[in-house]
């Protein structure tokens, strides 16, 4: 049986639904976990998953902060940038050199064929 365009779209919709449901489920678990009091996490598998989800959420937020504000001093950032610019300038220069060399070879070939 051939797969139609509609079947493919249905598959994608199902895929999105699964993700949405899982996402909602995770959000609900985080909310429940945040409301837990000390020691409540050990009260069965459900409570453990909720508590774990809440803890992971805290770590995730920290990671987001770290990534958006890396602990790099302005001097370090400047130095890194300078090095990158220097390397890039060198590579552009090296490319220019090779083009000049190739150009000379092309001129020689052109002179020979004309």
């Amino acid at each position, binding site marked *: 049986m051939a797969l139609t365009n509609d079947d493919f779209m249905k598959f994608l919709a199902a895929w999105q639904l699964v993700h949405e449901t899982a996402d909602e489920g995770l959000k609900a678990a985080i909310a429940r976990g945040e409301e837990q009091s000390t020691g409540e996490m050990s009260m069965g598998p459900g409570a453990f998953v909720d508590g774990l989800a809440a803890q992971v959420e805290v770590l995730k937020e920290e990671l987001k902060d770290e990534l958006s504000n890396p602990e790099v001093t302005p001097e370090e950032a400047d130095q890194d940038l300078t090095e990158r610019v*220097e390397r890039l300038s*060198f590579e552009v220069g090296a490319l220019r*050199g090779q083009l*000049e060399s190739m150009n000379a070879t092309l*001129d*020689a070939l052109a002179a020979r064929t004309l």
Partner: protein
Amino acid sequence: MSARSRKISFVFTKHLLNALTRTRFGLMDAAQKRVIRAEELRLAFEELGPAFIKLGQLISLRPDMFPAEYVFEMESLRDAVPALPYKAIAEVIEKDFGKSPDELFVDFEREPIGSASIAQVHRAKLHEPYTTIFGEELDAGTPLAIKVVRPHTKETIEADLEIAARWVDRLNWFDSLRRFNVGLIVEELSESLQRECDLRNEARISDEFAFEYRAWPRVTTAPMIWPYISPNVLTMGFVEGYHLTEAEQAEAAGVDARYLALHGAEVFMRQVLELGYFHADLHQSNMILTPDSRICYIDFGILGNVAAEHREAITQVLVATVYGDAKRAIKYSAPLGLVITPERQPIVEQKVAELMSRTLGATPRDIRGFAIGFLGIMNDERVSVPRGFGLLIKALVTVEGCAQMVYPDIDVTVAAKPYATKLVARQMMNPARLYQRLPDALDAFLEELVG
């Protein structure tokens, strides 16, 4: 048998007989015999020309495969051949650029300033101003050195290589020669020649080297003039200065030659331990002391490589060697591929410790003696030396040789010590390394805690 094959057979037989006579038909001790045989082999290579000279140069780069006496003897191969007439050189330039040397340059000198088996070098001046890839502006009339590959070099060498390949098959009949894996050397020779015969590779490496040392005011290279660079022609700025053998004149002219000799060792350390590649063909003609007290490196034909994962171990081995710590040197040699069986380890350590105290404990230190002795111990113990390791040992000896050519009392390990120590400290404090070691440290801590 072709005339060339006959000549090769004749030359080798002649030097083999010489070696037999000089070693009193093999009655001398093994080390003396090796020295004499190596010398006769070198003389045979010199007599046979370019392909064999290159073969000898490759042997000099493989202390992992050949006895140390051969490796160090091949260093003194004289790669000087009669210069070709200007007409032949002009034809090569004209073929690559479509113009004669006189149209491309000003005052192109007919007589070369150097002539080797693969290329010869002529002086000339820049026709029009040129800005190098680093933004340095060179005026018209700037002195130049133009290296030109000798015509038909590649074809001649390839023909010799074919003959060499046939000889390899014959040499492999002998057990004592088979372990040298001459076939592999001939293959490497072929690859190396492919690279060396295209001078654009050398120009690229020279520029890369200049970039990596941009923050080192005492290190420089010749500027590359790319519009006049092709596979057969390399045009660079002519570097005025003194060769290492002219240190006295350099000093008289106000050059700080002693500082530069020590600085050269530091530059070498950085190449090996930080950049991961090094100038593996250092000799007195490839370094120039400039009037403004800088070292100019030229001729980047042969490069040695150090894999990133080996750099830490090499640093540790160097530090251990500098501080005369045999146990540490052997321990960190293992990750580099120097495999010693556990039962032989104490004996090897003892031999290396004795060698260290005899050569490195002496004043001045004898790094060359240490290198020959170390490779000899490995050979006696039938421990195969990895290629990178052998090349490194040899390069270190060369650096020492170059520095001592300027000042015989110089000790390159004095220059190496603070640099290598600093590098080890930096490696130890590297967050990635700490992270890698953390689980082991935690395990050890818990074990202590729990019991």
